[in-house]
């Protein structure tokens, strides 16, 4: 099975551990990733904060490439990227005038027809049964808190993915791996996202709240499907501990890490050794 792949800047930058994990894991499940040719950044928060048109044009450029190359489904493992791509795609699909305008701006015809999937949706497409069959090392010791953050489920009208207040799709997958999924409070609260660099206070505060609730509900790890969530909870965890004088020592895994490990992949293979907090 082949699927288009839009890695986005984070996965080709400081979150390259996520890319490794996704590639190894999906490879083992027989999913071939076809990377989008010459993709550009989705624009992220900066674009929609400073120029609404650019926030459509940058994703439109990527969608135009996908259409040109006949890619009708594309995985964007970063929720920020997938949300921006989906939003732009829907806006394009809905408006003739916008399609014309954007085709001019990106110098290529674009209709917004490409389906954009997050990582969980790709696992859902592969199917629980197939994943379950591939499990060789059930994660019986794992008590995971599934953390969705913001952009996997919001804005709900556009993303139409899971219950935006109490999502359970990650839990379903985790349970198929033999792990326990704990119920907790802040599954969809924000960790501060892209504010890591310019507003550290906020990020540490929110990350602390999340890590505290996770621990209080008896989890021994957190599962994420977002590079920003990983940065804020993993890389920043030491700062959180320093600032609040606590010890969390909570390992943070990508969803693909756990699926991969259950299928027998080593942590090193998937870049788990690059995480800051070691289990």
């Amino acid at each position, binding site marked *: 099975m082949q699927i288009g792949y839009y890695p986005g800047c984070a996965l080709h930058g400081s979150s390259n551990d996520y890319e490794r994990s996704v590639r190894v894991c999906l490879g083992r499940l027989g999913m071939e990733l076809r990377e989008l040719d010459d993709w550009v950044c989705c624009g992220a928060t900066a674009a929609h904060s400073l120029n609404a048109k650019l926030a459509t044009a940058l994703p439109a450029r990527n969608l135009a490439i996908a259409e040109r190359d006949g890619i009708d489904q594309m995985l964007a493992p970063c929720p920020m990227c997938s949300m921006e791509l989906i939003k732009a795609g829907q806006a394009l699909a809905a408006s003739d005038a916008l399609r014309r305008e954007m085709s001019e701006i990106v110098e290529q015809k674009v209709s917004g027809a490409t389906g954009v999937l997050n990582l969980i949706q790709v696992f859902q497409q592969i199917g629980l049964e197939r994943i379950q069959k591939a499990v060789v090392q059930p994660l019986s010791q794992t008590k995971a808190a599934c953390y969705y953050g913001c952009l996997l489920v919001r804005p709900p009208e556009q993303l139409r993915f899971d*219950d*935006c*207040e*109490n999502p359970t799709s990650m839990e379903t997958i985790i349970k198929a791996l033999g792990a326990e999924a704990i119920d907790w*409070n*802040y599954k969809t609260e924000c960790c501060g996202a892209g504010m890591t660099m310019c507003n550290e206070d906020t990020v540490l505060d929110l990350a602390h709240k999340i890590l505290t*609730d996770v621990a*209080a509900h008896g989890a021994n790890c957190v599962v994420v499907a977002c590079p920003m969530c990983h940065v804020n909870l993993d890389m920043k965890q030491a700062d959180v501990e320093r600032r609040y004088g606590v010890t969390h020592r909570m390992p943070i895994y990508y969803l693909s890490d756990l699926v991969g490990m259950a299928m027998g992949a080593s942590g090193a293979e998937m870049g788990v050794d690059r995480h800051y907090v070691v289990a």
Partner: protein
Amino acid sequence: MRIGVFTCWCGENIARHVDCQKVAEAIRNLLGVHCSVDYKYMCSDPGQSMIREQIRNGKLTGLVVAACSPHMHLKTFRKAAEAEGLNPYMVEMANVREHCAWVHHDREAATAKAIDIIRMAVAKVQQNRPLAAIRVPVTKRAMVIGGGVAGIQAALDIADAGFEVVLVERDPSIGGKMAGLSETFPTLDCSQCILTPRMVDVGQHPRIKLHTYSEVEAVNGYVGNFKVTVRKKARYVDITKCNGCGDCWNKCPQKKNLSEFDFGMGKRTAIYVPFPQAVPARPVIDREACTMLLKGKCGICAKKCTRGAINFEDQDQLITEDVGAIVAATGYKLCDIGKDEGRYKGYGEYGFGRYADVIDGLQFERIVSASGPTGGEIKRPSDGKTPKSVVFICCVGSRDDAKGCGYCSKICCMYVAKHTMLYKHKVHDGQAHVFYMDIRAGGKNYEEFVRRAIEQDGAEYHRGRVSRITEHNGQLIVRGVDTLVGEAMTIEADLVVLATAMRPADGVESLAQKLNIGYDEYGFLSESHPKLRPVETNTAGVLVCGACQAPKDIPESVAQASAAAAKVMMLFARDELTREPEVAEVNEQTCAACFSCVRGCPYKAIDEADITDRQGRLIKRTARVNPGLCMGCGTCVAICPSKSVDLAGFTEQQVYAMVESLV
């Protein structure tokens, strides 16, 4: 034919843009027109006198009044004609106000158009034939559907006026939601204390026939002559033998069924009486919970019953009731916000259904009620602890377009204030918090009541909505805002009570379809006119009252119920009803019996009929209009492929004459 045409100025309304004198002159020359006059106010006394004089002196046989809409004054002029011995259906109106003067400014063109409109009416009236009003008998017996406070009030009023009433209630007992309430606003008098005597009155009334645990299956007929099929659900208890001693339910081993009466806050047995004051105070067996009915094992109740009233072989029964009027009083339910439900989206953010201590307003009524599962002691569902901090949240599911419900449920502001008082009166060291958006306390002594909750009973009101409820160590963490202070706030609560939206009771749409009455996008039954016909519906003889029509509180429901009862009595004050004769008629000779009209009729007024010879042999089949049901809409006329249906007063001949007068 001798036609009189009377053109009205309607003060300035018509005369400003139409030259009425010129109109009258132009019309005077038309064939068949005997006289044509204009006058400032035709509907006034002198105006009507003038018309009558002209009928008398000019021996008029047809009348056209060019004035306002026939909705306004057709009746007025028909009465005037009738008083002079002219058949009232020989009167036509030409609407030169709404259709002409009000919508045009060019006086000359408007005048020309007015002449055209009147010419059409003159052409029509020349084809008019005298018609006679249709008379139908009245069955002086009413059905009330729903035995809540509104249905009880309507039934008692009608029965006390001397007419028989059939009261149909879906649950095993009458009493409705009100029977489960603790105290009522704004007086804090005990709900059961005021309702149960009325329930007993119903149960003992010689003119009220009670069908509990029953539902309306089908409705046929028309005003004054309805035939209603009622399904009496199998109760498995013969209530004529049972004396309500309680031996059965006291010994029933299936004790863990959630009590509907307690809104799931308490438990009941499989054979049960919903509550001690139930009317009838006779048990019913829950067929989903009884092991005897499910698996054929147990039967303890039957062994304990000394009167042999238990009958496991009981079956649903269909019975037919003849009534002349029907009052729908099917009430409301609170929305279930735990999950998405059709157009309504759930409130995942409030954790209803996920956290045991997040409950709705009716559930709180039960845990504060002396007859409730906690005996009136306020204990929270999860662990039975007395909550020391309770958060009440208003407008949950109401005024929330994003969740699919934009309307205000009207009663919540009041019952939330009541809840904070009842709570404070029972938990003196407790603190009640209320999140509200606006306080809507329009009603006698209502505003004073809310102020009392705040000023005397110390309820903390915060203006703002709650965004999210989470749970931490058995405490509910409520994240809200006080927009007046401009600060987000977090309250740790032991119990959260959601004032969830009022919605029409389940199944109301299908009942409305059986009754052939309208309902709005939310399922609330539609009244005929919001101001002037508030309890009538668009189907004659069917009335509505209580919360099935719109969210309302007890006083309003009772007032509306009495209003509906009064309308029923008006109907029953006459021995027969007259109906407008402008109904459809089938030419049975040419009817090809395709029955397209039967399927197309929105009022189910057309039947399939057989024409037989004297020996009873079938000659042909035909469609036949029931004039009692026909509303004269003309759908069948348009549908009929063989042109075999015509509408009295609007015959094709008349319509063609109107068109021809223009070309």
